[in-house]
């Protein structure tokens, strides 16, 4: 994992702009900063403006753990591709597996509602997946212990994706972000993908093997065990990255007039 904002890495980033590339972003912790209450998360005005500028030039996708309906309510900007519920919604929806995921989540909710949770634990029903947040818990260690014990008892067993002070529960066999990205590549007709994410749920994309097309992965925050190729130090740097991408896609004439890089 190497810094994206180094001279060498930026040249690799620039080379992506010479070919058919899809630009895909995670939402929480990547485009929007992590907030104490997940329902407060929104795109900043600057980020939204920059995303609009980028989307006017190239295909842009947002791939999130949130439901599509929830995502839409958090921004006025509408990207070309919107994928929700870690890949279950919006990529290649198969009605049967979605219905089955919905039924499974309802079972889990019923089972989880029987527990006496400490205050600050929030169970978010995202229809096709669940998110168990413990960011606001007074004792996070206790909340973590109780949550993992409860998750162990769930039937059918879920696929658990730990996030930032959250456990995401998905039905086993449900598509993940990696599968969603491969599907988007096919759908968009692009050859390459630049994917930016911040979480363990994004490792499904970071660990995709380089096949016929190249997936250039960027993680928000450096993490030794991550499979991402590059990193930006913090979420606040996302606008800088977007500015670079827009700059690389400006016509050469404009570039000569504008001169300096972002």
């Amino acid at each position, binding site marked *: 994992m190497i810094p994206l904002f180094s001279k060498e890495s930026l040249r690799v980033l620039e*080379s992506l702009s*010479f070919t058919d590339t899809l630009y895909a972003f995670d939402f929480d912790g990547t485009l929007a900063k992590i907030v104490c209450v997940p329902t407060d998360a929104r795109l900043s005005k600057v980020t939204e403006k920059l995303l609009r500028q980028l989307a006017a030039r190239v295909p842009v996708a947002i791939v999130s753990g949130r439901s599509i309906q929830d995502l839409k309510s958090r921004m006025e900007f509408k990207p070309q591709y919107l994928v929700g519920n870690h890949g279950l919604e919006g990529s290649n929806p198969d009605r049967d597996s979605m219905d089955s995921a919905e039924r499974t989540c309802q079972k889990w909710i019923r089972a989880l509602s029987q527990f006496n949770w400490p205050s600050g634990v929030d169970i978010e029903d995202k229809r096709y997946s669940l998110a168990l947040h413990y960011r606001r818990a007074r004792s996070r260690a206790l909340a973590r212990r109780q949550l993992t014990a409860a998750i162990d008892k769930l039937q059918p067993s879920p696929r658990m994706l730990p996030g930032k002070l959250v456990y995401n529960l998905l039905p086993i066999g449900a598509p993940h972000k990696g599968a969603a990205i491969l599907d988007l590549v096919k759908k968009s007709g692009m050859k390459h993908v630049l994917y930016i994410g911040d979480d363990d749920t994004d490792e499904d994309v970071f660990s995709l093997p380089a096949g016929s097309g*190249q997936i250039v992965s960027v993680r928000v925050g450096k993490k030794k065990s991550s499979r991402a190729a590059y990193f930006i130090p913090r979420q606040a740097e996302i606008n800088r990255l977007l500015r670079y991408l827009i700059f690389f896609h400006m016509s050469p004439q404009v570039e000569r007039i504008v001169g300096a890089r972002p």
Partner: protein
Amino acid sequence: MRKVQGEPPIYSLFQIGKQIHSMNRRSESQLGLSLVQWYLLSRLVHMPASSPLALAAAVNVHPSTLTQTMKRLEKKRLIFVSSDPKDSRKKVVSITRAGKDTLDLATAKIDEWSSHLSLLGNDLERLRKCLSAQI
């Protein structure tokens, strides 16, 4: 290409070779890029951050054959080689902005020069198949 009745096919092949050689010289003097270098750039532009091995497979040459061409392109600053961020023992190669600009100019010119080649169409394909079968 002149075609004389009853000429052995190898004569035609020789004529093609001569024309490619002359086109290559023209390309080098006018564009600063040999046809092989142009071909490599035109494949690399769609393969950002590729391993030299993958690039060699894409242009259908042995990796060792590619090394010299890559070195020349790197010297001209049309491509750059960097460490693979996922494995520092490996290298990846990408095209530079100057490489992309040169490629665009060269492609327009080479398209102009080779516009008549489309007339050969099937003949060229047959020749290619015949040569691959021989080699």
